[in-house]
């Protein structure tokens, strides 16, 4: 056991995991996080708290994770390298571990230009793969990046993202292999809409034996309308939404229901793809739909542990 979190136990025992995502508020209300925790508590195994997602300032991921944990939900603390240098990242890791947080997700972070402080200086002292490396060193060698000893254990279950739909496509599996080499334990992918492309990616992953070395959770984002689907296709970096899905939503009488139906079909298909060990539901601002989706996907009861 690396951190002994429920997510780790579920994945290591070969069971199918379900994780979800919750964005902390643009304010100081603990109740917002707690409410999201209440909604998600009985439909997933762990919940990611985003870290200034899309470069918009929100309550810190660390505080969000602590609040979530208090509601009885296992948190996954997202960490981006955009806003903090190696000193701040390491100190936040120590703080998070001291508060009982065990799951982490290493990300580059959306560029600050996309957010609400576009004139900010981007830090990018280390990159997301190097963050994985740093966490592994802290955990396995009990050392800071500079080699100094850390007092106390640093149990961490280390996660990272992967985007099978970005370019160059042929390099995406190699980049995943680099993350594995750096020491990642689990992966949550960008939202899957193009299932055949994702299947091709997973085939390459399995050919290289990476499915045996890392647990991959396929990302899904429920869509509420044709407009949202078009927006994701055109403006969300690295997401590819096939025209067929947009047409279905445009022609549907009840777009929301059709959206859920589409995602359920996708979940059903990705569950069958070799090497997929779970799903990660990113219901951005639509957390209410998650219990219904997980129920209909036949993935209840949750959490398994």
């Amino acid at each position, binding site marked *: 056991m690396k951190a002994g979190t429920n997510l780790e136990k579920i994945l290591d025992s070969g069971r199918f995991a379900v994780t979800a995502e919750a964005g902390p508020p643009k304010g100081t209300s603990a109740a917002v996080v707690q409410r999201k925790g209440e909604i998600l508590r009985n439909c997933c195994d762990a919940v990611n708290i985003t870290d200034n997602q899309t470069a918009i300032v929100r309550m810190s991921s660390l505080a969000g994770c602590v609040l979530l944990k208090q509601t009885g939900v296992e948190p996954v603390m997202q960490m981006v390298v955009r806003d903090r240098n190696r000193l701040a990242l390491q100190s936040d890791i120590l703080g998070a571990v001291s508060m009982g947080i065990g799951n982490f997700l290493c990300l*580059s972070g*959306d560029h600050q230009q*996309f957010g609400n402080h576009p004139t900010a200086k981007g830090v990018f002292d280390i990159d997301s793969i*190097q963050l994985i490396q740093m966490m592994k060193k802290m955990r396995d060698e009990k050392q800071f990046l500079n080699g100094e000893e850390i007092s106390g254990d640093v149990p961490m279950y280390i996660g990272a993202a992967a985007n099978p739909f*970005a*370019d*160059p496509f042929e390099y995406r599996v190699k*980049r995943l292999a680099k993350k594995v080499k750096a020491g990642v334990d689990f992966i949550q992918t960008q939202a899957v809409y193009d299932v055949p492309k994702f299947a091709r990616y997973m085939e390459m992953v399995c050919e290289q034996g990476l499915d045996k070395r890392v647990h991959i959770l396929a990302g899904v984002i429920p869509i509420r309308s044709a407009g949202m689907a078009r927006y994701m296709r055109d403006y969300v970096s*690295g997401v590819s939404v096939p025209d067929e899905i947009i047409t279905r939503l445009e022609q549907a009488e009840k777009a929301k229901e059709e959206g859920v139906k589409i995602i359920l079909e996708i979940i059903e298909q990705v569950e069958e793809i070799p090497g997929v060990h779970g799903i990660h539901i990113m219901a951005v601002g639509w957390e209410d739909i998650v219990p219904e989706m997980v129920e209909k996907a036949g993935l209840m009861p949750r959490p398994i542990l």
Partner: protein
Amino acid sequence: MKTITAQKPLEEILQCLGKSQGVYIIGCGTCTTLCHTGGKAEVMEMKEKLEAAGKKVTGWMVIPTACDELTKYALQENAEDIAAADCILAMPCAIGVQTISFHLQEDKPVYPALNTLFLGLEESPGHFIETCLQCGNCVLGRTAAICPLVRCAKSLLNGPCGGSVDGKCEISPDIPCAWQLIYDRLAEMGRLDEMEEVEPIKDWSSSVSGGPRIVDVDAESGIISGKTESEAESAQN
């Protein structure tokens, strides 16, 4: 290689000049002439604009290369007109501005008329791209001679982020993804395996993060600061 500059808005320049009435304008015959931001034509244009704003231009000159130490003599030769001004409006890059300020004999403010952007490589006629961060610890040998520190919006050292689509960076369709460029060039050379190694965490202490950088250059033997005593000794032998 050119230092790429852009003119500041006139409002900002006038605000900077403040109550100064007499202004002496200095342009540069090298980079800012080529950028059309601080050559003779722009100096004359600036003179007109300042006069229209009620300033008195006591004189002007275009120094061939303002960042050169010969600037000292150019300032001496024009000392009279400079003395008649309350301040200098400098139209070279920031290095030229500071060279002027450094060599100026009298206690007079020097204001920049330009913003200095980057050291540009001319990719196609008139199209300049930023290619070097001057980090002091070159990685080009491992990145197909394309610098990801400055050409990738996130300075990533380990390949393209999830925002690389159709060869473009997520921040703009006009910006190529540096890592796609690196990938393509390595692929052409049959060296793609080089992108499988994890690039170690960077030592930023050789960059501006490590504090202001100063070197001593000996006219004959090159840079002499930073060497250990034994190295210096063996160099002498």
